[in-house]
């Protein structure tokens, strides 16, 4: 029980924040998604989403690429291998804690 409690301190705070958890969950469930899709699904404001994405990108959890689909510019976000592993670790720890 004690070791499980200590797991609480080792939770990834970057992912633990609800808005970022939403974003990572959405990206985990798709190959890639653009800014508008994340905006609509998460219900966050543009500024809020943008700042969370920047933090996740800085941590190396997501990749942000500006590209064109036809003539239209898209800001496409994708979970990196690190991000995927971090999310998996996070869910494992949360599961362990829930068994306390």
């Amino acid at each position, binding site marked *: 029980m004690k070791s499980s409690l200590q797991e609480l301190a080792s939770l990834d705070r970057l992912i633990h924040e*609800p808005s970022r958890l*939403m974003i990572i*969950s*959405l990206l*985990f*469930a*798709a*190959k*890639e*998604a*653009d*800014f*508008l*899709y*994340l*905006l*609509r*699904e*998460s*219900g*966050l404001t543009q500024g809020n989403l943008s700042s969370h994405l920047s933090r996740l990108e800085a941590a190396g959890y997501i990749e942000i690429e500006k590209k064109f*689909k*036809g*003539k*239209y510019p*898209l800001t*496409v976000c994708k979970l990196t291998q690190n991000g*995927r592993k971090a*999310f*998996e670790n996070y*869910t494992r720890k949360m*599961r362990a804690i829930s068994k306390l």
Partner: protein
Amino acid sequence: MANYIEPPKLMRSAFPSIIELTRRAVNAWHRDGIPTMVGGIGYTLMGLTLVPFRTPYHAFSYAMLWICVIVVHSLGETVIPGLKARFTYRRTGYVAPVNLDSSLIESDFISITEPDFNEAELREEQRRVLRARQARALVALGIVLALVTAAGDVSEQHHNLFAFSAVMVMVAFLTKPSFYRFTVLEFLGCPALALLIARFPIARNRGIGLLLILLGLFSFSRGLIVFIRYMQKTSAAVP
């Protein structure tokens, strides 16, 4: 009540699972009706390749049909994203759905999506997914073999063509779940229903061709209705 702020979608739906989010991504891909419309055009074109030929099971006719399948499939890979870029992405955003089947094979995905899974259950789930894939391939093979049987007097050359078709259909189903998604009923259903028509003493190719055209037009009109509704619903979202 006046100060009540509606919570974001994800929070409102009480923690949707990753599987649920994956389904949402898949639905987002199909909700504009464009894949259905393009599929409908494809079937119509396929049907048109069969109608002009009178001779039952004319080799050239079938070759044209399968070349058409390949061309339509390849075009679908470029035409659908092009149309989506024109109409969908700026309204409801772009999302590339994951291949759910292959993701389920990855143990990490399933252990996260289904937290109560133990190792034995996980292996059983993997086997179930594999069995489902095998069943899908067998269904495809069975229908193609049924077509060969229905032909009765087909030459060896035609058998080879059917065998090629069977392999192509199986490869398509095993490697392209998105292709499978909008063709399993229509694409496999067409030849199966066409068998009934082929049994009557009429030009068999024409029967199959006309049926493909009808189903293609049905698929197209269904996709068009979905597309019009989608455009009406999302017109306010266009920047």
